[in-house]
């Protein structure tokens, strides 16, 4: 197909209507950091391209006290520069801060990171750890699915990924994230982990949600790690145990992959860093 129709979308309604009209023939372009390369290399060849970067509603970060809603067009730079993400949401800040380069963060969006479907997408593990819900809109109405299920039930041809929302962490919760890349800037993740931890007054974990990136076909929830950590304190033995649990899960998932021995070793310090910083930062968050 030859690209011969482009639109500067002005509103969500307009984009939804265009998607309804063109369906499969159309692609959404936001930050363009992945799709423009795919277009150039002819990995994709849509007939219609719809830009959504000028739609203000998609660029909003909303905090209603209970939930935070990120428009799909919110850029990584917007997240990095917003103070909401510097407290117990620091794991999301850290993940977004480590995306690409300043130029990539200025253009790249949360919605694009999700919709592009990369296993190594940096912002997804922390968002999964937060229990995020993705909101998709089409002429049929609104469909909401948990982010952790998104990869098994992706955005449809007539749908626009409109926003993502998660419950604000409680004062005794903290989100952390660690990434292994080959260098500081412009590094695609080799692997990442994100963990949301909730401690009681005795520092015992009373709630936990863990997620990983690049340890499978998609970013995913790490249930075995959660089950292991629940009810324990963060100590050296606990961290070792959590690493064991994750390695067993990886062995099964990445069986036969040439990267498994490397990732198996590398995950040790990455998960350790996530959990240790989670433990340390609970004191800094100011809730205890």
């Amino acid at each position, binding site marked *: 197909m030859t690209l011969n129709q482009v639109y500067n979308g002005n509103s969500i309604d307009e984009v939804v209507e265009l998607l309804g009209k063109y369906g499969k023939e159309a692609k959404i372009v936001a930050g363009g950091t992945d799709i*423009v390369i795919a277009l150039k290399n002819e990995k994709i060849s849509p007939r219609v391209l719809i830009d959504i970067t000028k739609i203000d509603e998609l660029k909003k970060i909303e905090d209603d006290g209970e939930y935070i809603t990120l428009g799909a067009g919110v850029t990584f730079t917007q997240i990095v520069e917003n103070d909401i993400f510097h407290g117990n949401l620091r794991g999301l800040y850290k993940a977004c801060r480590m995306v690409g380069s300043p*130029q990539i963060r200025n253009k790249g969006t949360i919605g694009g990171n999700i919709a592009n479907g990369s296993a190594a997408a940096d912002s997804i593990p922390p968002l999964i750890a937060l229990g995020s819900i993705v909101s998709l809109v089409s002429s049929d109405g609104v469909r909401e699915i948990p982010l952790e299920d998104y990869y098994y039930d992706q955005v449809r041809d007539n749908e626009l990924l409109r926003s993502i929302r998660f419950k604000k962490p409680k004062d005794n919760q903290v989100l952390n994230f660690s990434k292994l890349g080959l260098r500081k800037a412009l590094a695609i993740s080799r692997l990442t982990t994100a963990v949301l931890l909730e401690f009681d007054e005795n520092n015992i974990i009373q709630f936990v949600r863990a997620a990983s990136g690049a340890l499978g076909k998609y970013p995913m929830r790490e249930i075995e790690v959660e089950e292991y950590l629940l009810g324990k304190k963060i100590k050296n033995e606990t961290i070792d145990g959590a690493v064991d649990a994750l390695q067993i899960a990886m062995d099964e998932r990445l069986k036969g992959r040439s990267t498994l021995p490397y990732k198996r070793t590398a995950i040790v310090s990455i998960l350790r860093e996530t959990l240790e910083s989670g433990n340390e930062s609970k004191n800094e968050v100011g809730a205890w």
Partner: protein
Amino acid sequence: MVNIGLTVNQKLFEISVDENLRLIDLLRDKLGFHGTKEGCGEGECGACTVIMDGETVNSCLVMAFQANGSNITTIEGMEKDGKLHPIQQAYIDAGAVQCGFCIPGMVLSTKALLDKNSHPNRDEIREGISGNLCRCTGYNKMLDATEMAIKYMEEEKE
């Protein structure tokens, strides 16, 4: 073809472009701003950096039609009244220029950094230019140049 209008270096351009044209091609081939360089074509090297609506972008990753209504600064827009911008002068004075292919992007990243943070420390400068590759290994000179530019800009204010 699609009609777009954009401002480049404070001049308005109205032009009809191919749907699949990228911003870098528009700037170089159609509008003649060949100071914008293409080094990799996939957002890794930063040679094509321009400032779009106040923020640096890789112009190889933006479609031309997406720039409709945008305000863009390229390296050609840095000089004012025939006088170099203090950042440009500092790059020359610090000896930060070697092969020069990264320099337009590097200078624009430096500008965007100083526009947001007028007194960055050396780590912050490194971070600010972390999306721009130099293969002549001149990063230290670029940090020196940025510090020199900060001084020049302060002197200019006085």
